[in-house]
């Protein structure tokens, strides 16, 4: 279920850490300004993270009919989920 933005942020960060640990990837500190491309997470990791977030939050912001601009930074990525939750809750 869409939660508030603090819950969403903590869920996203927790799942990023879980997946990195599982995949034995050294994760850069997850600051908002961090480029996803420099986080250590590759496309397979991001794919797993998106799938687990869908199970955990109950929605997938990429699942739309329109074009989706893929988030570039960690902050974009988190906001992407926060905005989708806000839209769903509105």
């Amino acid at each position: 279920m869409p939660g508030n933005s603090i819950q969403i942020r903590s869920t996203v960060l927790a799942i990023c850490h879980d997946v990195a640990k599982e995949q034995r990837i050294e994760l850069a500190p997850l600051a908002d300004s961090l480029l996803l491309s420099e986080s250590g997470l590759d496309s397979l990791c991001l794919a797993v993270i998106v799938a687990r977030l869908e199970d955990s939050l109950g929605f997938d912001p990429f699942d739309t009919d329109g074009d989706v601009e893929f988030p570039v930074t960690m902050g974009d990525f988190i906001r992407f989920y926060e905005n989708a939750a806000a839209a769903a809750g509105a």
Partner: protein
Amino acid sequence: MRLQQPAPSGFSLWRRMDIAGNLSGRWLRGADAGIRLDALSSSSGLSIQPHRLRGKSVLVVTQDQLAAALAMIELDGVVRRLLVCPPGLSPEHCSSLISAAGIDLIVCDTASAHIGDAGLERVTVHNRMIAQLEADRETDEPTEWILLTSGTTGRPKMTVHTLPGLTGAIGSRTAPQIPAVWSTFYDIRRYGGLQIFLRAMLGGGSMILSSAGEGAGAFLARTGSHGVTHISGTPSHWRASLMSAPVRQFAPRYIRLSGEIADQGILDRLRAAFREADIAHAFASTEAGVAFDVKDGLAGFPAGLVGRSRDGVEMKVENGSLRIKSPRTASRYLDEGGELRDADGFIDTGDMVELHHGRYHFVGRRDGLINTGGLKVHPEEIEAVINLHPRVRMCCVRGRRNPIVGAIVSADVVAEFDRPDHATDATEALRTEIIEICKKHLARHKIPAVIRFVPALGIGASGKLAR
């Protein structure tokens, strides 16, 4: 002990049952009725004398499996063409098959009387004897058997077989001193079940038939109470059975797996549960017939089987898939179902194999691939690894749509927990252990991205995991 006569391959099913001997002590039993085979010497379950069906093209469509068994025994060697409908065929497909196969008579039981074209002649078959035979059984028509493929979409394809081809893997052996009582989870109107029915009938044994809607536990309890000695099913059937209580009172002499990949997990588990039984896994399909069986308790098959074998089966591996040429394959598709064989006479099974240390292992179906970021993944290969975990009872791996890599690997797992109300901690611990096993055996992109624990998984009518 008495020796059977040499393989009388030109004889009808009834003649060969008779030759197998001792009809009086043998029987066929469904869930709620049974017949003694010697009754067939003088009586019939058909509503008209069987010889009046000579040369006809017959569709057998019954609700009752025992009635279908009787129809097969009574009609082989009599009718020109015998199309046996598996249960659950839609009325539209049924009508379409009737016209494509040139059917001119329908054999049905009272429960199936509404099915098919109303314009065709109908004969009823019962699951008991209803009439005395007026003459000896006719047995010299080389009946064409039409079996339907078990495809899940569209109208099934019709494959053309003969009784000698269908029974080519059975052979003639010394009649066992203790008569076998066979059973199978399959319906005998599908290729895998028909093989077991024919083994029982030609090998001097008796048989218990399965029943639609009966759970694995109830079925095993029933087979156990009738002293079943030989039993077959898919690995999914066996995984479901090992979770049921009646399996503990069950002591078969022979266990056969076919229809799906027999992975090491299920072979080991069956070995542990049935220490005295011979356990074999067979490779067969409706199109390719029975190719071989493996009795050494190991998954896959020895590479030495590829090439020409002693019993006329030739196998090759081309572009990763197993291909079979043998006298037991179907001769053709009856309708416009496409070419059955390649130019060299081999049937491409679509089952992909990989060679490791002198043994071929099945990795999955060619058409069942998951494409994850351009890398191909066989769900069955991952399932075999997950099934290695001792707490995993069965699992199903699927592709799940993913915006980043197209599809990711997702696994639904039926697991055994110490307590039914298992805590989140236990679930998480098991999830981590399964991921660790996968990491040990599989490339990174094959490790399930998502694991869900589910109470049960669906098994389709063909006995295979519903994917």
